[in-house]
């Protein structure tokens, strides 16, 4: 059981690194955004795991003595999710515009064209 005391955090790091890997190795911009969203979710999981108290219950009060998990991370992450989708949409809009300007959404191709244009 003691091996599991940090299990959630290990998984968080694993997920974060997978997201990071996608962002730095894949050249396709949509794929990069997918990687970012995996990264983002790993942070959500980190916060939520930290707020959990074992044997606790959801922080919606009801009569009787109960242990409630920490509501503060929930608030932070709840708003972060909606802001996350809004910013992802902005990123996607940028990708669409890049496609219209360069005819490609592959990072290398865009950079190459940019260099050619400057010459």
């Amino acid at each position, binding site marked *: 059981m003691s091996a599991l005391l940090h299990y959630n955090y290990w998984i968080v*790091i694993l997920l974060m690194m997978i997201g990071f890997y996608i962002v730095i190795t894949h*050249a396709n911009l949509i794929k990069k955004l*997918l990687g970012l969203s995996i990264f983002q979710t790993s942070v959500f999981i980190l916060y939520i795991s*930290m707020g959990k108290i074992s044997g*606790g219950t959801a*922080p919606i009060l009801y009569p009787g003595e109960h242990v409630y998990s920490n509501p503060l991370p*929930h608030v932070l992450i709840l708003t972060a999710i909606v802001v996350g989708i809004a910013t992802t949409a902005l990123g996607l809009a940028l990708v669409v515009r890049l496609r219209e*300007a360069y005819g490609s959404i592959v990072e290398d191709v865009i950079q190459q064209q940019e260099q050619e244009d400057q010459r």
Partner: protein
Amino acid sequence: MEMLVDVFLLGLLVATAVAISSTKDLFASIMLTGLYSLISAAFFVLMDAVDVAFTEAAVGAGISTLLMLSCMKLTGQYEPKPHRHRRLLGLVVVSVTGVLLLFGTLDTPNFGDDHSPIQDHLAPHYLTKSMEEIGIPNVVTSVLASYRGFDTFGETVVILTAGIGVLALLGFSPKRQSDDLDSLVAPMHHQKILRVVSKLLIPPILLFALYVQFHGDFGPGGGFQAGVIFAAAIILYAMIFGVHVARQVFRDGAIRLLAALGVLIYGSVGLLSFLSGKNFLDYSVLSDTPQHGQHWGIMLVEMGVGITVAAVMLIIFFTFSARVDKRERDGDENQRQ
């Protein structure tokens, strides 16, 4: 038992993430991202974060998948595999960072510990005092809309800004030919069964969105979730009966106005308490007893959030779909080869 499910779900998450990273087909990886967010929402339920699960369910699995798909529709489905040296380099960087971070976890408090630093500040106050200070059972809502109302105000403005950003990037339509828009066939109009079932479903979804909006004080829910669910119902309608039909009801000008109106409501509630001699967003002056004032304040503020979120989601979806429609009509003329 909870621990077992926890291990299980997190394992599934990692498997999905690896699969997303390794497929070359963007359609498949976007679908898997939807699955990923389904699993993470189930995980949030397990971690007692019901409000978060609610939001993730409404946002991650639904709207974000749809947006990614429309973007992919505009840009192409397949990606080349990254070069070998790039993958190798990436792997090295990632493993070094990962090991360093793992080293960091050695000092973190144990999972589920009730005396870790995060549990000692603020949270006990919120949990014990919320009922007498605010008077609603859902502590998440009371923290969101009252204790940290200023924070949430900022988030709402960020959402509005993102909506404006998307409009600025993609919103302009060079030549609007209204008769041309009508001639465009709704892509799923011929699916009779879908049409009937969604007609049956949409009114309950809208009702449910209202329930979520106003029941947020007592159970999971609130403005953010309700806004997204409301928008999802309209998006369902738009997908099946055609975007131009939905846009005739939710006119561009109107939803832009609504998006701003939500933030305005939120801000003016704050200003009202400001002008009555209290702090910004201190709702206790809104009614004769402080607790009653809090109720009013939270309701109004959540309404503002709901309106803004729903309107911005609709703006974003309509903007993207208008692009896709335009592309279907005109072909890919902007492509530079």
